[in-house]
């Protein structure tokens, strides 16, 4: 039986002389919510690139559900169940929200290569669109064009696209980046309602949200893991306070 959904073994990444990730090991259990904390430049987004396959590691191994995936490209990893939502919106701008979700659902259900049946008429695709729209609170905005949707709705769709593929492992890069307090509540609810068969890694700067949803927190600094523990332990840890939370209350 597999007890880890994601296993990272001494992962390193350097760009020329700059070491962005250094000898990082992680182990995430199925269904876990793991929050990745760290100051700017700690290597959080690079870690996601390495996990999703959009960057190649300089060293180290990655296992998804027991399977070594280090040599696979991003497309193959996506098919194996790694989905990712981006820090900066990366959507199908000229299409409607429904069409965005349709593309993701068709990809996940293996219907992207069907040549003759109208995608919008597949019952399972329509059902998936409705489900995801409900999960990310976009039921009433489905026919809106993304380019004209509100920033908050676009952030929700960003997560919706990733969820629509029904991933095993969901990588969320600052889902609440740039949204207001109301929206953060909404994301909090969204995260709490996610089914537990999805393992989630979240990079998050909103501390209430991070401590609220996390089972475990991993703190990175200068590409290295400096701490790992429960939210309570993290709060109490002196090193973490020192490098991340600072002494005042003016963290990002």
């Amino acid at each position, binding site marked *: 039986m597999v007890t880890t959904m994601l296993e990272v073994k001494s992962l390193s990444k350097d760009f020329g002389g700059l070491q962005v990730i250094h000898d990082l090991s992680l182990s995430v259990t199925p269904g876990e919510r793991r929050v990745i904390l760290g100051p700017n430049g700690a290597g959080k987004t690079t870690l996601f690139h390495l996990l999703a396959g959009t960057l190649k590691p300089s060293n180290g191994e990655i296992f998804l559900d027991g399977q070594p995936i280090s040599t696979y490209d991003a497309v*193959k990893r996506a098919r194996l169940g790694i989905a990712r939502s981006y820090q900066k919106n990366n959507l199908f701008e000229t299409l409607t929200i429904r069409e965005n979700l349709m593309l993701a659902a068709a*990809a996940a259900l293996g219907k992207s290569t*069907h040549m003759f049946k*109208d*995608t919008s008429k597949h019952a399972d695709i329509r059902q998936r669109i409705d489900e995801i729209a409900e999960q990310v609170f976009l039921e009433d905005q489905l026919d809106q*064009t993304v380019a004209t949707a509100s920033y908050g709705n676009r952030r929700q769709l960003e997560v919706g696209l990733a969820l629509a593929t029904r991933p095993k492992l969901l990588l969320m890069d600052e889902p609440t980046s740039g949204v207001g307090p109301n929206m953060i509540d909404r994301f909090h609810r969204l995260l709490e309602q996610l089914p537990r068969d999805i393992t989630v890694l979240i990079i998050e700067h909103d501390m209430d949200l991070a401590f609220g949803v996390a089972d475990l927190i991993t703190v990175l600094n200068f590409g290295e893991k400096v701490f790992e523990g429960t939210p309570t332990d993290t709060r109490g840890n002196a090193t973490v306070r020192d490098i991340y939370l600072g002494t005042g209350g003016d963290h990002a």
Partner: protein
Amino acid sequence: MFYQTKLRSITLIAALIFLACYASFGSYFAREIVVEIIILAILAISLDLCAGFGGMVSLCHGAMMGVAAYGFAIMSAKLGWPLFPSALIGLFAAVVFSGLVGWVTSRTNGIFFIMATLAFGQMAYTFFFKSRWLGGDDGFGGISRFDLSMIGLETNDSLVFTYIGLVILLLAYGLTAIVMRSGFGRTLSGIHVNEDRMKALGINTAAHRAKAMAFSGFIAGLAGIIAAQHTLYISPELLIWTTSGEALIVVILGGLGTLVGPIIGAILLVLMKHEISNYTDYWHAFIGLVLIFTVLAGGRGVFGQIEYWFNKLTQKHQSTTKPHGDDHA
């Protein structure tokens, strides 16, 4: 993304009826014009599916059409095969050629894609141009039209041939429309809008684009088979890059990414060409001006612009109904 809207269906039917009437009530010359329109329209539909939906502005569509025409002509006229199997081989050759071009160019975009397809098209052109066996730049004749006498059709009659051409145009449109509505076609639109995100969703975008080119080659091949049977003669001129350029003009004139637009564009271009050349040798200049105006007026093309106005008008009346086809992808 493609939707077969009512406006598109009505425009399609109106265009086909117009062409049928133009051929029926006109002279032999009018039928020649209609066949010219049909060939150009099918080629432009094939290009629209690449350029308008896939964002792949190809300059080798003339070559894709020409490969099918040569394939058909070589099998039937040179090697004496029956006509229908020869046509299938011609189409197959176009699919293989287009798929190969698509596969090699699938990781390039924008200007590099245009240049790469231009190079492949000119390679094919040069191949036929240099071949002595195939008559070099003179090409060769001796091609026959399909024998449909068992269903009572005399294809050597210009009107019957024109009608058959119209049916093939309708089939080419219908097939392309169905594929553009499918998962395959919508994913192609998605790749056009955001290829990186499509990859992140687990789509092998390079392979997808290559397949789209292959399918486009099949449609272009249909135009090639008609072209060869129309003049009963073929020459490398079919493959030259200006043929592709003309198809691109037609797509832009009619409306990129609409599928109906290319048919309207082909009608306009060929009619303008023939009407204006009655008065002046400088008809190219006139078409150039029309094209510049089209691009400056928003680049939607004639049909695209009408559709844009129509959607605005109807959205005012009913803002909560289903989405109409948008003009981007």
